[in-house]
């Protein structure tokens, strides 16, 4: 059954409860180049496969960009 999370500030439906790592794969995002915040707490990289997404989770995928 499907659930909806909030991804980078927008609703994002996902099929069933998958891990954060699986989410990144489906999004084509290299886990090594981003920071993942889940419900305001930062996830360690090596735990991304163990964290399963729940309905309503707020997920932020953040990376570095050029800035002054």
């Amino acid at each position, binding site marked *: 059954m499907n659930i909806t999370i909030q991804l980078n500030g927008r609703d994002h439906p996902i099929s069933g409860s998958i891990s954060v790592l699986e989410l990144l794969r489906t999004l084509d995002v290299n886990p090594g180049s981003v920071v993942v915040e889940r419900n305001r707490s930062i996830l360690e990289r090596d735990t991304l496969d163990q964290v399963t997404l729940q309905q309503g989770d707020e997920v932020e995928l953040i*990376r570095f960009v050029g800035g002054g």
Partner: protein
Amino acid sequence: MENNPLVIGGRSFRSRLLVGTGKFPSSRSMVEAINASGSDIVTVALRRVDLADPGDDIMSALDPERYLILPNTSGARDAEEAVRLARISRAAGCEPWVKLEVTPDPHYLLPDPVETLKAAEILVKDGFTVLPYINADPVLAKRLEDVGTATVMPLGAPIGTNRGLKTRDSIQIIIEQATVPVIVDAGLGAPSHAAEAMELGADGVLVNTAIAVAGDPAAMAQAFKLGVEAGRLAFISGLGGLRWKAEASSPLTGFLRRAES
């Protein structure tokens, strides 16, 4: 006076020019410009991953062995957001250094003195080396020092305006009173502006827009490098004072005329 290296948070840097990485036409021109600048400190920002283009990654272009990567908190509108951003960069593997920016106003991107001080206090306690971006406010600069920031970074003019050292008088007071390095940030649009700041005794300057939007960013980066060195060298060599009346550079002995006897 000697030309000591710039020391921030107990760490020593050869170059007194800090550069930003925004607005470059390409990742390659950015890297060329950074190298031409001779800079040891390079700022970056944090943003949400663009899910439409998840590939792009600036860090792959920057060598953390060559420069200190200094994340800023641009985009933060209050202390809480700024603290959160700082912690995210640390979690991303950066050293616990942060260029603290809290800019609620989207038009001029001017810093909020109260929120900046609040965030600085939290981040210092949290173990960060904090370099706060501030208006040219001497009293605020002292208060930031008091809570333990590693520098103060007063602006010369609003970010990206290239207007130069419009806050000259206040910057001069900040330099006179500061016990931490003063890095002039924002608004410096030409090497002469950077040189002027260094001649006043600033410990360094941060430049981004003026380099990134130049016709030839790498050449402009080198121009700023020279300007910063020129200003620093002039400062430690002892600039002469201003005069109102002329002072002949050629001797003014009575000349080719009959001597008055």
